[in-house]
């Protein structure tokens, strides 16, 4: 017992030190673990990504502060969508991390710069000017893999991105798939990220019958098992409204940021895919979303141009209000969904092709310059362009990305016409709104298509129109005039043009149901003063002009090298130029329009194409302006007679 007492005494110091240090360690481990569990920045993933980010930054330093390639401002802005970045290259639903890095670096090297969501929204409201080659980078679902592999890239390239959050998923405790609120806070604090709404809890399948078959939360009426019935349309509207407002409120309260943007879950062209028991459901949701959010993000569906244009782009004065209304978005934002197998060159070409093309524009199809095929198939590239209808379909339509802001121009295509009807499209705003010249053997029609419904405004029989190889079909759109050209000669026209837009081609063959058209080249040239894509078309000129509608001019062969504009006779009636003066583009090109006005009183002889088919490039612009000036009074003077 004595020895025992001795032991207690002799080692007491060590015991106290030991207990003290061990207790500190225990506290350290517990508090450290609790802290780490709630501190995403300390996760191994975050540490690993930080290390990778440092390496990326080191390699990418030369590109980090790439200056803008020009001082020009953006007319429209493309938006990219990703979901998660994966390590597994065989994942067909998600882009791999390496591919994403390549893509972003390629965009950066090419001078592309991201914009923040706030800037994008301001741009779309017409409140902010952004530099050319700006794009918005978005991620859906706010999964962990939309942040951790992405952030180092953003950091290294000085980029920003948006994550659309499914609120309920982000709040799953200890979720290992979705980003937690803590992580989202951290993202917002970094300044590199913005967030938008991706619904409160509308991203998962919802039951639509007693058997448990699943429908779409935002498009189907949901089964109420307690009452053994489907919800009513009223209940549908309430449920959707609740979800959308709840999501917005919750996000704004949690993150103290305004939430103006909503990405439709499972969104495609109709808003939502897969709906079946409530055909109006998707539209209803879109309507409700419009009341809650300022912008609804969908995916591009090959029916629209790639870029998104501001709501008030019409105030820029260079495109008609009709066009601006259709082209500019009041709510919907269309996004490019980046597929897993796109390489960086492909993504870059899509963005580059979407940029406004300059007139004159020639395409001999050595590469794809951005032909968007709404339906049917196109084989483009390697000096070849074949437009073919799908099986069981009798037509195919394609239009040229980046041409949507063109104003007055001629558009001609050299085609190998073997059958069916060839539609030469002008003023394309989307796949459902365009003007066209429809060539059938021995017949030509001028058609205007509004919201998918075509109306023929002028037509004519012409025996010269015949099938053949290397025939030239064309359309000229200028002012209120739509003209059709066969082998560069104007053969039909109408004066009903209301909007401007881009160019396209369509082929239709109702007999064989196997329409096909081979095109060897196209050329688009500016008309009027429109040498810089500018459209000069007073907004008041939307009426038809009956006295000229039937005046079909005889075919005039014009040398392809010359300007193909068929020139109307100068009108003897001179009207004040006030309609033209507010056009800034005109003033840019013609610093002193007043002298020109004077000169119109003595029409230059060069305006007669038959007498002087060769217009020198130097005088081209000026003489065209004069022509336009002579044309204006003609158009406006007819208005009162309507």
């Amino acid at each position: 017992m004595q020895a025992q007492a001795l032991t207690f005494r002799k080692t007491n110091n060590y015991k106290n030190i030991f207990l003290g240090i061990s207790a500190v360690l225990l506290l350290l481990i517990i508090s450290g673990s609790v802290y780490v569990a709630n501190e995403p920045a300390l996760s191994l993933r975050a540490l690993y990504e930080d290390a990778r980010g440092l390496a990326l930054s080191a390699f990418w330093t030369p590109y980090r502060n790439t200056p803008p390639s020009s001082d020009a401002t953006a007319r429209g802005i493309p938006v990219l969508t990703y979901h998660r970045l994966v390590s597994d290259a065989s994942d067909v639903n998600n882009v791999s991390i390496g591919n994403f890095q390549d893509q972003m670096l390629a965009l950066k090297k090419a001078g592309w710069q991201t914009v923040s969501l706030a800037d994008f929204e301001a741009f779309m409201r017409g409140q902010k000017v952004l530099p050319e080659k700006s794009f918005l980078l978005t991620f859906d679902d706010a999964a962990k893999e939309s942040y951790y592999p992405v952030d180092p890239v953003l950091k290294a390239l000085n980029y920003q991105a948006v994550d659309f959050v499914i609120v309920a998923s982000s709040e799953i405790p200890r979720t290992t798939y979705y980003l937690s609120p803590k992580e989202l806070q951290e993202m917002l604090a970094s300044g590199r990220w913005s967030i938008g709404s991706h619904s409160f809890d509308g991203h998962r399948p919802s039951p639509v019958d007693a058997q448990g078959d699943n429908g779409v939360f935002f498009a189907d009426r949901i089964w109420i098992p307690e009452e053994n019935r489907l919800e009513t349309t009223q209940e549908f509207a309430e449920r959707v409204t609740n979800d959308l407002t709840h999501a917005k409120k919750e996000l704004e309260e949690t993150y103290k940021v305004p939430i103006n943007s909503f990405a439709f879950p499972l969104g495609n062209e109709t808003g939502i895919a897969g709906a079946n028991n409530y055909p109006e459901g998707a539209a209803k949701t879109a309507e409700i979303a419009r009341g809650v959010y300022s912008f609804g993000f969908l995916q591009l569906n090959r029916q629209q141009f790639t870029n998104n244009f501001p709501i008030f782009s019409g105030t820029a004065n260079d495109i008609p209000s009709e066009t601006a209304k259709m082209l500019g978005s009041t709510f919907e934002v269309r996004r490019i969904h980046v597929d897993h197998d796109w390489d960086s060159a492909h993504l870059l070409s899509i963005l580059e092709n979407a940029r406004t093309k300059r007139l004159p524009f020639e395409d001999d199809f050595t590469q794809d310059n951005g032909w968007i095929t709404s339906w049917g198939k196109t084989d483009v590239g390697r000096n070849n362009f074949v437009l073919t209808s799908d099986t069981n379909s009798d037509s195919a339509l394609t239009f040229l990305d980046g041409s949507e802001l063109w104003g007055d121009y001629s558009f001609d295509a050299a085609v190998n016409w073997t059958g069916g009807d060839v539609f030469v499209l002008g003023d394309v705003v989307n796949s459902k709104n365009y003007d066209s010249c429809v060539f059938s053997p021995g017949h030509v029609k001028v058609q205007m298509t509004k919201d998918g419904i075509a109306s023929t405004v002028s037509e004519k029989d012409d025996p010269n129109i015949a099938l053949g190889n290397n025939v030239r079909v064309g359309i000229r759109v200028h002012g209120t005039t739509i003209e059709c050209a066969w082998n560069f000669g104007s053969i039909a026209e109408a004066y009903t043009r209301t909007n401007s837009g881009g160019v396209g081609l369509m082929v239709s063959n109702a007999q064989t149901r196997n329409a096909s058209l081979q095109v060897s080249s196209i050329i688009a040239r500016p008309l009027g003063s429109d040498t810089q894509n500018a459209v000069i078309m007073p907004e008041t000129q939307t009426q038809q002009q009956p006295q000229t509608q039937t005046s079909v001019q005889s075919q005039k062969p014009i040398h392809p090298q010359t300007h193909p504009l068929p020139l109307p006779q100068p009108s003897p009636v001179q009207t004040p130029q006030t309609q033209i003066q507010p056009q800034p583009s005109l003033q840019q090109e013609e610093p002193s329009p007043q002298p020109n006005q004077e000169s119109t009183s003595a029409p230059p002889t060069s305006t007669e194409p038959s007498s002087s088919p060769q217009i020198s490039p130097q005088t081209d612009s000026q003489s065209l302006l004069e022509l336009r000036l002579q044309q204006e009074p003609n158009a406006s003077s007819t208005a009162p007679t309507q």
Partner: protein
Amino acid sequence: MKLAWTTQSLQNRSSAVGNDMWRNYVSPQTQEQVEHGRIRNIWYQALLFGATIVTLAAIIIIKSKSTESANVDGILLFYTYFVTTFQLSRLVASVMYSSSYQRALSEHEAYQDVYEPKISFVIPAYNEEGEIQNTIRNCLQAHYPTHLTEVIVINDASTDSTRQKILEMKEQYPQIIFVDWNKNQGKRHGMAEGFRQASGEIVIQLDSDSRIDPRDIRNVVEPFRNPSIGAVSYHTEPANANENVLTRMQAAYYFLSFRILKAAESTFRMVFCCSGCASAYRRNIILPLLDEWLTESFLGLPVTWGDDRSITNRVIKLGYDTLYSSTVRAYTIVPTTLKQFVKQQIRWKKGWFVNSLFASKFVVKRDPFVAFTYFFPLMIVTIMTPIMAARAFLYTPFVHGFTSTFYYMLGVFAVAILFIIFYRFYSKDNPYYRYIFLWALLNMVLLSYMLFVALLTIQNRGWGTRGVLKPAPATAT
């Protein structure tokens, strides 16, 4: 030559502890060299300190992620905190070892007097014709007055020429006391006979294939100056460490379990197992215990393993302190095949289990601090480790995904890194530290489960291979 590195480490080791006779063997160093070495040491230790902090942070992060990904909650979550703290607390205790040992030596008032008690080496031998002469000669070379040294060799009815070899040695060295048995009685009886025959105050028990470093003999005697010390364990390392991967791994594990785990026990003067390879006992404490020790039984059958652990526990029970000395070195032969090795592990675990049950009856009364900070936690951890490992490998991957298993393994290796840092801190020269990873892996996938094999076969009291009957250094956590 295979001991070359240990000789070097003997020369480099700290002079803090005990008799400094070993200094005679240090090659002369210039003042400049000494100074250079000192500065390099400071840098080295600062590096290790930094590594400790970093590893500690990593362990905390990994543990947190591990529990998160495996959905560990409630009592299990507390257990993971507890087990990590327990592992780290061993390191804390091991840091205080040298200081505690120093105090054990110096606290007795007679410290300054000459202390030269008679010592007796006891070597029970069974079929050891190859090694027995070397072992005896090794004892006779001890740096201690010859008239105060005796060697007792017990031939446990060997069937080979062991008896002849011993007789040859006895002719040469008459101070050898030879006990020759016609009937095999087992190692425990051999050891007991040694205690009875010994006339020395200190009895040094050796395995017949163990070697001691003859220079260290005064270091092992020194602690007995303090009357509360009942037994001192040698620091043992494998003599055949370089044979293959398995022996290298055991070399690493021996170092870790002696210099860290046993040292940690020694800090509180309660080493539960003074290694049977080589340990010194105070004879007059042991003699009254022999009858009880020889008749030890468990579940009605005599206990045939854990002799060393058993006798040490009885010394502790009497109220005496047991120490481990890092400055007295012994070398032993370790198993070279996995089968032998696993068999040995199973025997050790049986011995650990039976003796832990025995010790649990008195340890709280003996020293509640050790009981609750070390003894009972060790029992819990040893039993839980295979369960947690099995959970991480067989359960969570299918329920929570392989991430959790990955984090579990990462956590185990992070702790292993921390142990390696301390390993490197205690010995700059021991080259086997890398094999701690292998040990950690083997423990995770194989060795920890042997506890259950041991429990299932606890009634199998076969002798096993006499040659590999080795004491457990300490049970791994």
